[in-house]
């Protein structure tokens, strides 16, 4: 990991944590477990498409760990980790295959997988009866995934206007992976 990756990962982790902590103050909107806007996943998604899984994975892990500790809900870290791992594994496998205007597709699928992972963890600790919540969680995953996916998508499409990110802006052909020619020169 070079200095640029570390810096990028650190900035994105701080951003993800800030969003996560603010969102944690919002009480549950629906009396259904596991339904949250998941806005910090927009940051993880941005990191994945902007800098690849090598940067996005530490951002996700750090956000889960530190977020759980800072919000005082260390208990829920297990469920966040289960869901996050499943959704991130999917994202890391397919992110290269989706063009710039379909980031929200990856996000929606990842969000649904995240909820499924959380449900599986809850079923392992409580009982398999919690899977009765699967339809509701799929529906909410699709909705929240769409929102966070669009946030990440629009950020990705316009981030090149900021100086720090300009060097790694999207290439003209629309692919997200930067050429990293400058890194190779170092």
């Amino acid at each position: 990991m070079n200095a640029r990756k570390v810096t990028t990962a650190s900035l994105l982790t701080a951003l993800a944590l800030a969003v996560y902590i603010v969102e944690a103050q919002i009480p549950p909107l629906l009396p259904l477990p596991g339904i949250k806007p998941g806005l910090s996943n927009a940051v993880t998604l941005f990191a994945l498409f902007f800098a690849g899984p090598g940067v996005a994975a530490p951002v996700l892990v750090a956000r889960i760990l530190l977020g759980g500790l800072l919000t005082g809900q260390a208990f829920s870290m297990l469920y966040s980790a289960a869901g996050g791992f499943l959704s991130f594994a999917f994202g890391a496998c397919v992110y290269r295959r989706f063009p710039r205007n379909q980031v929200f597709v990856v996000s929606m699928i990842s969000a649904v997988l995240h909820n499924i992972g959380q449900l599986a963890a809850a079923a392992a600790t409580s009982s398999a009866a919690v899977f009765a919540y699967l339809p509701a969680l799929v529906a909410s995953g699709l909705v929240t995934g769409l929102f966070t996916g669009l946030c990440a998508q629009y950020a990705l499409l316009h981030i090149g206007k900021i100086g720090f990110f300009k060097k790694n802006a999207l290439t003209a052909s629309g692919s997200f992976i930067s050429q990293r020619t400058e890194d190779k020169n170092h």
Partner: protein
Amino acid sequence: MKTRAWIALFAALLLVSCAAAWYVSHRRPADSLVGVYQDGRLVRCVDLALAAEPYDIALADGCVVRVEAGEIRMLSSDCPDQICVAQGALTGNLPIVCVPNRVVIRYLSEPDAGYDAVSGAVPGN
């Protein structure tokens, strides 16, 4: 796959899951036997039809379950989100779940009727 195809797919999936969620939460089993589970084990078996007077069941981790008027609900819990309490009475196949305390309250369907463990509680008492 084209974006429109994805959108159509997700719209269909959303419809199906909303319908399934509605179905799950409104379909009530024929009988009135409810099981209270903690840590995956049946802790208490309640027959709502026999519950004459309201009574409370205190569970190990700070949850209190109330049975009254043919309904069962989570009265209070020490969990941070209080989703289980806000859910109200048990309806349909959607269980009342308190994830931090690993409590699940649900109707016992026919296959479960051969209880593995009932901890000495008399239904309705």
